[in-house]
């Protein structure tokens, strides 16, 4: 059994309008997605802005009210607030954010920031708590005098590591990482990614790794989902997605990544234009009349794609 099982998750926001301000429509931020996160693995969630990837992440941490569907953890549906509270869900599931400066309280010292989740879930004496915070700073490779400093005194990469230390404080089983390195420079990004991998190996943590950066996801995740318009267009292993993409949207996304090898420049451009042309021509085939992503069809044990039925035949032949 997977650690987290998301089933038919929907998060809709009402749109109000008209004279009586009645709900006239809904924004389908997340519109029916299923996936599992296994213990100790990193699951990638890729999408462009507005795809619903961050909303999904927040729902899994319990920060976003769910319209329908279930998120099962240890046999219980944690979409209900009472269940989360009862089983101390957030002791096991924590989050790190993209903007490390705004997600850390500027008026609190690092010690208090990291200790906050401990205080919420554990009853430690002052000494034990300080010891634990020291230990956490150690894990993320920060000097112990960081305890008494404030968030603005650190660089972006260091702050992101403090964010990780805070998320680690309660020995979580899963960390939802929402664009954790998008705001960082290349060399700092490498540092944070390496370090996330290292603590994963050491503590057998799972990540839900949310990113728009296909290069970073490729490096971090063995399994992933491509999200578009609140639904999954394709899920599969790294191999499935990067080497055998089937959905036109996935192909388009992949072709848009600039390559660092200038040799292939013209070839890439040619390829990208070709994919773009096909995307324009065939887009309607891959989406319903309302623009909804079609249902996923299994094409191998690991690989499912939101393909129209006609294309499916082609794949099986």
């Amino acid at each position, binding site marked *: 059994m997977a650690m987290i099982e998301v089933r038919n998750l929907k998060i809709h926001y009402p749109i109000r*309008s008209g*004279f*009586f*301000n009645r709900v006239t429509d809904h924004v389908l931020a997340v519109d029916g997605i299923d996936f599992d996160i296994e213990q100790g693995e990193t699951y990638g969630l890729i999408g462009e802005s507005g795809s619903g990837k961050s909303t999904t992440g927040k729902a899994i941490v319990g920060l976003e009210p769910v319209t329908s569907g279930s998120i099962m953890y240890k046999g219980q549906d944690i979409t209900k607030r009472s269940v989360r509270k009862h089983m101390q869900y957030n002791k096991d599931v924590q989050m790190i954010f993209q903007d490390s400066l705004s997600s850390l309280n500027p008026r609190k010292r690092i010690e208090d920031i990291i200790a906050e989740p401990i205080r919420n879930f554990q009853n430690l004496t002052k000494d034990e708590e300080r010891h634990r915070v020291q230990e956490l700073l150690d894990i993320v490779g920060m000097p112990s005098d960081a305890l008494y400093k404030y968030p603005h005194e650190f660089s972006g990469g260091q702050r992101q590591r403090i964010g990780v230390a805070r998320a680690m404080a309660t020995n979580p089983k899963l960390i939802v990482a929402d664009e954790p390195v998008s705001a960082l420079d290349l060399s700092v990004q490498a540092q944070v990614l390496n370090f996330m991998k290292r603590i994963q190996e050491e503590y057998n943590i799972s990540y839900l790794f949310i990113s728009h950066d296909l290069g970073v996801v490729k490096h971090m995740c063995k399994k992933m989902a491509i999200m578009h318009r609140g639904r999954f267009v394709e899920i599969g292993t790294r191999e499935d997605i990067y080497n055998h993409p089937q959905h036109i949207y996935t192909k388009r996304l992949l072709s848009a990544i600039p390559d660092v090898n200038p040799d292939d420049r013209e070839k890439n451009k040619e390829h990208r234009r070709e994919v773009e042309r096909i995307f324009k021509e065939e887009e309607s085939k891959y989406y319903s009349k309302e623009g909804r992503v079609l249902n996923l069809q299994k094409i191998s044990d690991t690989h499912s794609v939101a393909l129209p039925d006609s294309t499916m035949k082609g794949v099986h032949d």
Partner: protein
Amino acid sequence: MWKTILRRILIMIPQLFLLSVLVFILAKMMPGDPLSGSFQQGQSAAQMAALRQQYGLNNPWYIQYASWVGNMLHGDLGQSFVYKRSVTGLIGERAVNTFWLALMSTVILYVIAIPAGVIAGRYEGSKRDSAISVTSFILMAVPPFVFYLLALIFFGFFLQWFPTGGSVSSTYNPGTLGYVWDRIYHMILPALVAGIITTPSTIQYLRTGVIDNTNQDFVRTARSKGVPDRVIFNKHILRNSLLPIAAFMGNQITSLLGGSVILETVFSYPGMGQLFVSSMTSRDYPVVISLVLLFGFLTLLGNLLSDIIMSIVDPRIRIE
């Protein structure tokens, strides 16, 4: 947009109803009644009781309330116990005084605050900026009544440049030019001090607005287009900096219309604020209730007005 305005006005009805009930109950709960103040020697208890009966003060509160609301809808706010005349007429008269005073002080406020805020923001850190900022901080720290009293003593009593009370001298007949000038003459000092004392918040909003907007990306874009500095300031920086002031304008206007209790009391200016105080002390319920209701209505109107102004000046805010 009209739909929203209409809806907002409709929403005001239940709000006003609630307010009226609340005000009515509070007024009834206060000790004493209007007649206890007018008790004169030689009046017997029986005469008082008869008067109470006559004014309907012995009826259950909901009947009193119903008749009050009924009359109010016909524009009849009842009779003032103290002035022995219709409340509508009384408030109407005072409202005119307050309106002109409010208008004058608003004009003075913006005439002083906008250039001051703009100069302070545009020349941030200069001597002019420090002079303006220091002055506005001092003004912010001075309690209004102290400021009013000092102005009154200095300009009114000491220098005798301005009259020390009232809205017009009795020597002029309404309609004459002298009468109009005399009314303005009576307003100048209170309007000036009321305008000046309200400048600090506007100055500070504008100053920070100008400083913030000067560093905005769109100002950099304008500079990269080769737009001259003067135009950049007027077209890009100033317009955006005036937004928070526009947002506050609706409330500013209506709050001034409500009259300033302290200002009018200090200057013995016969406006709404002064009326409010005097009717409170003399337990003139019909007047007090009508005024509180009016103030409530003005606040709601102010919010609506602010929203409408905002939707006109800021395209990002659309009320549909």
